[in-house]
Each structure stands twice: as C-alpha cells, then as structure tokens.
C-alpha cells in the first residue's frame, strides 16, 4: 500500500535511474544512435514502404513507412528516424522514436521518445525517457520487464520455470 513517505520500491529505483540517465541534462544524440554500436544497423530508408511483418536479429533504423508488425530479437535496438512512419506493433530491446508510431510499443529494456517523436498506442518498457515536445497518447507501463528464462534442468526438479511477470506488465486496457 503506497504511503506518501514510503521508501521507493525497486521499480522506483529503476525508474529513477532511468530518469536521470535520460533526463533533460542529457539530451538525445541527434545523430544515429548506433554509431557506437559494434554492429552496423540495417536500415529502411525514407523512400521505402513495407507492408507486412518485419523481424530480425540485428539493429534496425527505419526512416520510411512500415505497416504491420516489427519484431526484433531480444538484444536488438530499433530506431525510428524523424521521417519514419510506423503503423505497427513494435518489439525490441531498446527503441528510440523520433518519427511517428501508431501501435503497441514494447521495449524490453528502454524506450526513448525524442522531441519530434509521436507515439499513439500502448507502451510497455523497462525504462522510459521522454524529451520535451514528444507526443505520447496511450497507456504507459514502465518498470522492470523480465523475459522468460529457462532454468537449468536438475535431476528431480521440474525442467523449466518461467519467471513470473510483474502485474504491471500485463497487457490490457486502461481499465484492467
């Protein structure tokens, strides 16, 4: 039960660190955020339109139009450029939005919305950073997101356990 003066929960500490890590003092890097990445990012340029499902196992930069579904592997980042228009549900480890997104956004680790970014849809993320001027319309669920892990199989124990998801990350409407 929340009391005004209660100490912060672990999720609080997580969010606090997120806020400080992506706070106003550290503005978004306007250049491609993958410049430091050891992997080269694949890219969907401004003039490209894709309808359907896009999935992949490497970082992706989208500055074009995607309609359908966009799902990247657990360790991949997705950046929506300022010209990007996405009408799709997005799933990636880290998502940076500087364009327009319409759909559910699931960023397992963190979600950054730049000043030109617009999200119209539900958001689920471990950490959230919003720059001034960003537009966000929808339900926000922020907190530690645990991915399903397979426990080592010991003799006599059940083979695999799925780590429980916190109630805050259950999908649903604002009413649930």
């Amino acid at each position, binding site marked *: *039960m929340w009391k005004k003066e209660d100490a912060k*929960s672990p999720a609080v500490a997580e969010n606090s660190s997120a806020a400080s890590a*992506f706070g106003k003092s550290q503005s978004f890097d306007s250049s491609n955020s993958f410049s430091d990445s050891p992997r080269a990012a694949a890219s969907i340029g401004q003039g490209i339109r894709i309808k359907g499902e896009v999935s992949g196992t490497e970082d992706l930069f989208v500055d074009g139009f995607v309609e359908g579904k966009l799902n990247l592997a657990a360790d991949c980042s997705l950046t929506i450029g300022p010209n990007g228009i996405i009408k799709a549900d997005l799933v990636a480890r880290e998502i940076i939005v500087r364009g327009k997104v319409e759909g559910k956004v699931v960023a397992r680790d963190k979600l950054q919305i730049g000043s030109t970014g617009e999200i119209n849809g539900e958001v689920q993320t471990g950490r*959230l950073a*919003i720059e001034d001027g960003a*537009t966000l319309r929808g339900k926000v669920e922020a907190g530690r997101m645990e991915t399903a892990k397979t426990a080592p199989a010991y003799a006599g124990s059940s083979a695999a356990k799925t780590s429980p998801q916190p109630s805050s990350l259950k999908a649903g409407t604002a*009413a649930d």
Partner: protein
Amino acid sequence: MRREVPGPIHLTSRSRTPGAPPPPQAGATRAQVPQESNRLSNGLKELLWNLDGLERGTLLDMGPASQTTLSFFIERGFRVSSEDILRSWKNFLNEEEARLKQGFASGETLEMTPSARAARFMKENLQYPRSSFDAVLLWDLLDYLEQAVVKQVVASLTELLRPSGVVFAMFHTKKPEGFQRYRVVDSTALQVVPTAVICPAQRVYQNREIQDLFGRYRTMKSFIGRDQLRETLFIK
C-alpha cells in the same frame, strides 16, 4: 613581466552573475524569454492525500507527456495513461478545416455547430472504458477549449472516473496572457513551463459555472494561488 591589460570599460563596468546570459547588444529587441518556475501546489498535495492508500492506481494525464510527471506517478505504482487533449483539439481543428474545404469542393455538407463539432471530436478522443481511472490531471485545459467541448469533456471524464475518483483541475481567475504547461516536480510543487500558444484562452470560469460543470461530483475543493490560478479538486 606581463601586465594584464584591462578590457574596454563598457565590458567591465557592470558586474555580471557568473553563468548569467550576456547583456543584449545595442539595437536588439528586449523580448523577455519566459522562464520555467516552480510553484507550490496545495491542490497536488490534496490530490496525493486523496490517492493515498491506493495499491495500484490508474491515472490519466491530459497534459503533454512529461518525463517528470510520468515518472513521479509510475514510481508510486500508478498505471498512467497520457493524452494531450489540447494538442488533439488543435489537430482536430486543422483536420476539420481540411474536411470543410474538401466538402466544399465536393458539395458535401458538414454540420459546423459547436456541439456537432464537439461530438465529432469526442468520437476520436478520451476513448476508454467506463470507470478506468482513479485520478485525472486536467490541468488548466478547460480554459482553452470551446465551451461545447468543455461540457462533453467533463461529462466524459465523469464516466471514466471510478467512484471516489479525483479530478485535479486549474482555472485562471484572469484571462491568461501566455500559455503554460505543468509538470509534477515533487509531492508539493509543480513546474510551470511557458510554451508557445496552442489554442488561445477561451474564457474565465466563475465559481458558479465551475460548480455547475462538475455538478455530478460530491466534493469540490479549491485553492487560490497568488498567480491568478485556482487549483480545484473534484471528487466523484
């Protein structure tokens, strides 16, 4: 031995606070850039007091998405929904204008009475199931919306709130000159952020009009600030 040569007297004659912006150059306009400032908020304190004890509250923030405000409530276990109703209204007006031009060209008619327009706006906005929220941050947005829209927004919020839910609203006691947004800094203070005008202020509501608007709420509590801003809590 080197000797420091003093700079021109016009640069040294006035002391300046370290970090202060440089003085304006000759001929430059003296337009003052409004600064962000913090204000103590008894309304916010009262809102949080009312929400005290909620295990997993749900909150609708009708202002612009703000890192500090969202973090503040998420850290306290709230599930937050964000919908910048004023920005949506502005976009809607632009779309209406475009629709009107198209309709004029194609000979179609579009009912342009305030109530019809408000009804069209509400079809696309605040679409949540009934009793979705424990609290709504309405800020001072009613001062900037057309009256027909205001009535429908308040009616819609009443449906969206759970019993004992709280609306935190602000009303200007004089027509505001500028336009400002608000962020929750901590449990006692709001940050006031002057921004470019999205929609001009429509009117100043008198106490009686506010009571009539929120007539379906059981409690209304107001705090009048020195900055011509009245913070009001409505409890359903």
